[in-house]
């Protein structure tokens, strides 16, 4: 059993489990599934700076901070107890494309060749980690949610603004991955 769990899980197992998070959170305490809000609660808790957007009682949303702390711990557990030493399988077309940019290490889900402490001080690493992270934080809050809040919770409750947001996530992603990222990777 544990050997099976160590293998990468197929989408038809993972997807439904993620979908079940929606009713579980609703039934446990009437909480709507969402993750990016946790970033805002951190701002409200640590540096509200008198900005109206951060002036609220963040303690009422502590559940959300515990939820993301759990996700981090889940990562620790998965990598320690359910570690799969096999090389990550990736589409051959992508392997070929990434090799051009010197990305050849498939030992980790986070690409070691790009995301490491040394490369943080290179143009490529700085743009990808600091710049990319900034866009994620700014964009999700501007959009009012991320993949979990809009694509999963929003679509599950049939809210058309969430469909608009999800389509824009995909348009942005496709544009970046195919047309802009090649330039960033060449830095």
């Amino acid at each position, binding site marked *: 059993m544990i050997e099976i769990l160590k293998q990468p899980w197929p989408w038809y197992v993972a997807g439904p489990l993620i979908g079940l998070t929606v009713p579980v959170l609703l039934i446990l305490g009437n909480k709507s599934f969402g993750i990016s809000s946790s970033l805002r609660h951190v701002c409200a808790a640590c540096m509200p700076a008198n900005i109206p957007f951060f002036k*609220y009682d963040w303690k009422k949303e502590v559940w959300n901070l*515990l939820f993301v702390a759990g996700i981090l*711990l889940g990562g620790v557990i998965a990598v320690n107890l359910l570690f799969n030493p096999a090389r*990550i399988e990736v589409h051959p077309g992508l392997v070929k494309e990434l090799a051009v940019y010197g990305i050849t290490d498939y030992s980790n889900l986070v690409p070691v060749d790009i995301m490491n402490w040394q490369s943080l001080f290179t143009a490529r690493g700085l743009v990808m980690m600091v710049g*990319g992270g900034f866009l994620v934080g*700014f964009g999700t809050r501007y959009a*009012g949610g991320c993949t979990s809040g809009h694509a999963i919770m929003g679509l599950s409750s049939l809210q058309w603004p969430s469909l608009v947001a999800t389509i824009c996530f995909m348009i*942005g*992603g496709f544009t970046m*991955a195919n047309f802009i990222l090649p330039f960033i990777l060449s830095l």
Partner: protein
Amino acid sequence: MQQNIDAGADLQVREQDAICVNESRLQHKWYHNIKYLIVGILFGIVFVKAEIISWFRIQEMFRLQSFHMYGVIGSAVVVGMISVWLIRKYNIKTIYGESISISPKKFNKGQVYGGLIFGFGWAITGACPGPLFAQIGTGATVVTITLLSAIAGTWVYGYFREKLPH
């Protein structure tokens, strides 16, 4: 009464640009929140084992090289939809007996502009906010910088919020 007005104003602020806000009239001791930690742990394990936190999987998705992520998100939405439908149809209550409410989302231009900006960031970092936390958990400590930068991005959004088109 005064307290009710304050609580209402507080909820109004929290509801801005957010999806996961629900006011509960019930007060619980802090340890009631531990159940969310446990759900988070299980969720994080799924994230890692199904390679949803993989930068490579996200690149495949945006190059149409793999069905994996579409299958994950698609089946999650289907299960979520059926669940929400059942909860509404049978008026299922929370474990505390409170009725379940899902606040409606209003459309604003932020969903377009912000959506595109997040899409750019998602393709660069290969992670939406949830996977950032799980990636750090798997030992990719440098992702804490990405996470801090995401928090900074959220803060800058809050700072300029009134000036941005909505």
